[in-house]
């Protein structure tokens, strides 16, 4: 699968700016690559809407003979894993994580970018230093800390330790460095302090950037696995990802159920992608490069 995709793309690569490769050839190559990229989605939906005998049958059924819409409710009725609770946990954690990170990191980024202070550089280096240590690598000590606070199996434990992202703070600082000074100066003339100018002028004029960061942060929060796995010791504190992971190690495998649960877990993000793609692409172009 991989080698085919790579080959298809490398033939097209040489052909930038016309010549060598006809546009028919280009569309064939990119069509094949697109089909390969869609296979997992196809498998997911096919299994989610089939019966188990059809999934495990001798021949590969291209589509289920009868689409099993009834499968949609099954993950919620499953006595072994409380999928509804997990979905709810993920929603709460995803939203609060996003709101919290935007609030805390944007304020800090603005302070570092725009408020003159003698030791601002030292503070900035203290933030930069944390970029060198990926949070995933320090999950053992973080768990030690959070468990001594008694935050295991709680929303606090899932959300709060992740809010202080040096990277997001850094991105906001870079963004605010390029924010037009004239707008803030106009606000100052009107008698607003830093705080007032920030909320009334800077934030309302930066909504695109906030939306871009929010989209990426929400996706990362929803898809996070290692930290929720460590913190969610009790099934009632599982997020969707931890619940999905538990399906894979269960004794009995209920194929249509676990694929339906996976499909449901992806659905919110597919909506985010379809409706917020503009911000997402913008955000990636900004954040990825500057990283």
């Amino acid at each position: 699968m991989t080698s085919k995709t790579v080959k298809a793309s490398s033939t097209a690569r040489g052909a930038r700016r016309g010549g060598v490769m006809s546009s028919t050839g280009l569309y064939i190559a990119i069509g094949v690559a697109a089909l390969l990229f869609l296979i997992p989605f196809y498998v997911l939906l096919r299994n989610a809407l089939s019966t188990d005998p059809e999934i495990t049958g001798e021949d590969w059924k291209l589509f289920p003979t009868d689409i099993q819409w009834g499968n949609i409710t099954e993950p919620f009725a499953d006595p072994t894993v409380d999928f509804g609770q997990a979905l709810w946990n993920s929603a709460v954690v995803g939203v609060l994580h996003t709101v919290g990170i935007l609030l805390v990191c944007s304020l800090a980024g603005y302070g570092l970018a725009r408020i003159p202070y003698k030791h601002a550089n030292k503070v900035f280096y203290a933030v930069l230093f944390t970029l060198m240590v990926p949070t995933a690598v320090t999950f053992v000590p973080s768990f030690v800390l959070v468990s001594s606070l008694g935050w295991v199996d709680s929303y606090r434990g899932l959300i709060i330790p992740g809010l202080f992202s040096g990277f997001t703070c850094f991105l906001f600082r870079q963004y605010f460095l390029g924010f037009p000074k004239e707008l803030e100066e106009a606000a100052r003339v009107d008698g607003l302090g830093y705080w007032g100018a920030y909320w009334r002028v800077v934030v309302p004029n930066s909504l695109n950037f906030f939306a871009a960061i929010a989209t990426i942060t929400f996706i990362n929060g929803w898809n996070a696995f290692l930290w929720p796995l460590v913190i969610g010791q009790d099934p009632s504190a599982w997020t969707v990802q931890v619940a999905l992971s538990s399906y894979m190690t269960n004794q009995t495998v209920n194929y249509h159920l676990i694929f339906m649960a996976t499909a449901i877990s992806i659905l919110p993000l597919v909506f985010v992608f379809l409706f917020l793609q503009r911000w997402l692409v913008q955000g990636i172009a900004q954040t990825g490069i500057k990283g």
Partner: protein
Amino acid sequence: MSTTTTRGLARPAPAKSSGTRPRRGLRGNSTFNFWLFTGPFLIGLLIFVYVPIGWSIWLSFFEARFTVTPDKFIGFDNYRQMLGNGNFTGSLLTFTVFAAIIVPTTWALSLGLALMVNRLRFMRAFFRSVFFLPTACSYVAASLIWKMSIFNGVRFGLANTVLGWFGVENIAWLANPDPPWYWLVIVTARLWLQSGFYMILFLAALQNIPDELYEAAAIDGAKPGWQTFRYITLPQLRATSTAVILLLLIAAYQAFDEFFNLLSKTTWGRPPLVELYYTALGDSQDYGAGSAGAVILTLLICAVTLLQGKIMGFGRGDESK
């Protein structure tokens, strides 16, 4: 922190901002405002980033099984245990193999996709979305699809079904380390998940290459195709390529989700974070050794980041958040 605040208060505010503002009380003071804006973040950073790092350095010198407040100092024994432990050094080897495969393949695939999408005149948004959509999926979801259906080791797995049409016997993709088919499963899953993300980065960079360069090359007689790609596109993309390679490397270093889920009941193919997980949070709950491992990994990644930054002249890298 408090001493610096008082010192800062005594200092007159910079002329630039005071000139534009008619009146300023304490709330207008820039030192106060600096801490007002950055304070919440810095306090959190101190508690949830600096304290755990310090604590784990401390723990790594103690015998800390089932406890995080140990009292038996054992010097570098935890480090000796981790480095002398075949599992941990083996996990570093696993990471090296993984990075050696995934970094170049993702780089080539995402660049190839970007070049193709960039040339499209129709349905450009459609194809971009198709390649980008997997970014919406979590590693856990992809692991489930890969493990339970596409690379299921029994006959109804998609890969085995397709191979079956050509008379190939069923392959146990994940359940058998020899031959190591599990690498194919892990690498394709990550390729599918992350290529679209890096394609977006390359697309943005491609659109920044000035058309004049290609026009000048055409006048100089460069053939469109390989020549312009080799001598114009590729050099123009160098900054982005460097960034992408560094991001890929750091992401590979932190690989956990797909290894943990795809190889849940196996002892092979464990990258560093999975190994740490089992050391510190598995049955033995050895926080001392786990912390020593975390310190070693942190030092390694710092060294690699600094070295790469020096060599490539690229700024600081971080997880691809």
